[in-house]
């Protein structure tokens, strides 16, 4: 009998240790404000936090997919908020966020706030009935600081639920300014110029081993294929225009329609041409087996010249790489279809949804939609925001400044990453696998029909 009792106790002890191990990473919130916040007068530097009042130790959990250095930056921002308001905001980043959030919501342990990076997932969460409507203070901030497009992405049906937080800009093409100068290449102004440049590069060759103009990497474990969806989205927006893009994302324009097929073919002209890919890595078949993190690195060895990836790719260059307009690597925006077309970009962002209407939750949600938050977070580096209250002086380098200028620009046609906005069955499913099939040599018509078939039926 004795043995039987000690076993479960040992198990509890072990799981207790595991819990302790897990928690030490997450619960790094500042404890300085925990004790006597009610007696504290307004601390210096807290003027901007006055509207949120004194929250007297109210605990708020912010759940997110953001981990690592970026999570530390979020914690730093909330430390200041905690210090000034006496709240206890706990920032909880989890790599399995997209899978775990629905589980937590269905299991009745929803967080107070969730930072959702896909409008499609936001719709799914709202669909469960667990998300509460954004308070008036949040809506006022969004009306003041964001364009109408961004507000739409946080709206489901006609109800506004979630304010945008940070943003990233997709469709950058990374290149080596040093190589461009040496070879006499210029940054293309239209898509035709880009394709012509590709042909020139293939004819001239490069300095590295197994040189091809482009290098592409789709690998991302279970999400393998997403960099390909970014390619197609950028091409649809530029070649077919924003109206077709919207109707495509909404499921009205099918993947196998001539318009969308044209965009796939434009990508295929590059990705399926053994003379154009895959610099330093092999042929088209190597696209899937190369991780997206490694996809652009052959530029440094001179094995390829061009790599299509979002602004965040800046973090992938190894330490010591000169990332500047005249350095080892830099990026230009994928050009418009024709000269004179308005600048069009795709991008992504996060949306802060609340799962209860406690005053502290509303205060934190309001804070996260404010210019104070945008400036505090962007100042710490690595990210940008489409918040119009963002001071460009807080943005850490020229590429990011350009991206903010694009986002804030009045003539810019901005569209949210299409696969993130499509239903998960397509946007996180058949679109990814379709891209993998396409570069593996499956006929395009079959690929497109397969993607369409996964679209949830409407009735």
């Amino acid at each position, binding site marked *: 009998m004795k043995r039987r009792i000690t076993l479960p106790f040992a198990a509890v002890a072990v799981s207790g240790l595991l819990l302790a191990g897990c928690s030490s990473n997450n619960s790094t919130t500042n404890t300085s404000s925990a004790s006597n916040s009610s007696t504290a007068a307004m601390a210096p530097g807290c003027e901007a936090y006055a509207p949120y009042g004194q929250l007297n130790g109210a605990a708020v959990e912010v759940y997110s997919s953001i981990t690592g250095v970026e999570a530390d930056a979020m914690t730093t921002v909330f430390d200041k908020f905690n210090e000034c308001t006496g709240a206890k905001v706990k920032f909880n980043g989890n790599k399995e966020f997209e899978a775990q959030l629905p589980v937590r919501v269905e299991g009745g342990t929803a967080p107070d706030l969730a930072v959702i990076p896909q409008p499609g997932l936001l719709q799914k969460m709202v669909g469960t009935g667990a998300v509460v409507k954004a308070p008036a203070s949040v809506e006022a901030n969004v009306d003041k600081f964001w364009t109408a497009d961004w507000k739409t992405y946080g709206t489901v*049906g*006609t109800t506004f639920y979630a304010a945008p937080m940070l943003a990233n800009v997709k469709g950058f093409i990374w290149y080596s300014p040093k190589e461009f100068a040496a070879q006499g290449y210029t940054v293309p102004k239209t898509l035709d110029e880009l394709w012509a440049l590709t042909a020139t590069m293939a004819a001239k060759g490069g300095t590295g081993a197994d040189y091809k103009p482009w290098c592409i990497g789709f690998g991302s474990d279970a999400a393998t294929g997403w960099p390909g969806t970014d390619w197609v989205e950028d091409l649809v927006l530029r070649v077919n225009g924003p109206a077709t893009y919207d109707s495509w994302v909404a499921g009205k324009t099918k993947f196998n329609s001539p318009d969308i097929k044209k965009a796939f073919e434009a990508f295929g002209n590059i990705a399926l041409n053994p003379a154009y890919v895959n610099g330093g890595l092999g042929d088209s078949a190597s696209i899937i087996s190369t991780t997206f993190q490694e996809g652009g690195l052959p530029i440094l060895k001179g094995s390829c010249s061009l790599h299509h990836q979002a602004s965040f790719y800046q973090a992938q260059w190894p330490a010591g790489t000169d990332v500047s307009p005249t350095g080892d690597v830099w990026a230009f925006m994928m050009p418009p279809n024709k000269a004179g077309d308005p600048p069009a970009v795709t991008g992504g962002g996060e949306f802060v949804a609340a799962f209860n209407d406690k005053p502290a939750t509303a205060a934190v949600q309001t804070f996260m939609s404010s210019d104070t938050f945008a400036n505090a977070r962007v100042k710490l580096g690595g990210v940008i925001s489409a918040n119009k209250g963002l001071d460009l002086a807080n943005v850490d380098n020229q590429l990011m400044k350009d991206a903010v200028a694009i986002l804030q620009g009045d003539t810019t046609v901005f569209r949210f990453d299409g696969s993130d906005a499509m239903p998960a*069955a397509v946007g996180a499913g058949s679109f990814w*696998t379709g891209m993998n099939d396409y570069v593996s040599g499956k006929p395009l018509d079959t690929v497109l029909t397969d993607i369409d078939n996964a679209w949830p039926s409407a009735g």
Partner: protein
Amino acid sequence: MGSMPVMAVGSVRMGGLNADFWATNGKNLLLALVAIGAFIAVVALLLWGTELFSRLFSDKWRGGIQLFTLVSPVLILLAIGLIWPAVQTFFLSFTNVVRIPDPATGINVDQSTFVWFKNYIFAFSDPTELRTVINTLVWMFVTPILSTLVGLAYAVFIDRAKGERTLKSLVFLPVAVSLVGASIVWGFIMYDFNQTGSQTGIINALIALAGGHPINFLTADPWNTIFLIMILVWTQTGFAMVVLSAAIKGVPIELNEASALDGANAWQRFWQITVPSIRGTLVVVLTTITIATLKVFDVVRTLTQGRNGTNVIAYDMYDQFFVKDNRPLGAALAVVMFIFVVPIVVYNVRSMRKVRENH
């Protein structure tokens, strides 16, 4: 701000077990202790209560009453945790669920319609899904046969050999490796493939050394499924070998000696003495590995996520249900897998009972 130095000293002394910890995980820990205490109390009450309660009845009834009260908690838990979800899954597999969002609030109303066998027909007619089903059958046949053959051969060869224990341990070691671990080892050390530059995967490095063309093991459709199967075979062979080795040791040595005197060679003795003697154990090993194979999820999930025609039902049903939110199809695949596994489980239990009776 004023309390900062104090808190800093405090957190150093407590090594991270600060107020925040006790407020969150401390509460969980307490809850776990209470739950365990309650569990022990309930079990004790049940045992004691059954004893008292059954005393109220005559000897004739007592056995039945005790059986009923002791078994019913298990049955109730099984019904809630296993049977009810299984029934739900079964019904779900015959429906089509459409989520209709409210035009104003976006909150979904689920509308499910009965569609008979539509999901099953799709699972067996859609080329991608059909391939998944066929792959599962290939796994089911190849893995048990290969592991058992290799395990049996090894068990026979090392039987009563010098250093048998060490030789056995070597083959048994992979059994202790988790499938995710085994997949990573094989995927990145054995099967790694580079189109350019030198080969970093062991097998491809050897092929290149011998002057052959390196193979992309994970994308070479349809052989990639076989390469994935090898990983499971590697982990299951040790299990087959250990169980079969024990069975071989149970074969009376006199039988072998007598047949040797009659002029039977080693090959004949193996097929006509050893194999028939361990037939029951062979069946148990084969069926146990088949059942383990049906649940294979880890290898596919870790290495290919079902790409290049390597999908299997166990991975696809998870993918359809949770990732793609295509719940009816996921449920239908789960039922298909259940249908595959039931005859084998029944046969396995029967064979196991027979083996036990013989000993």
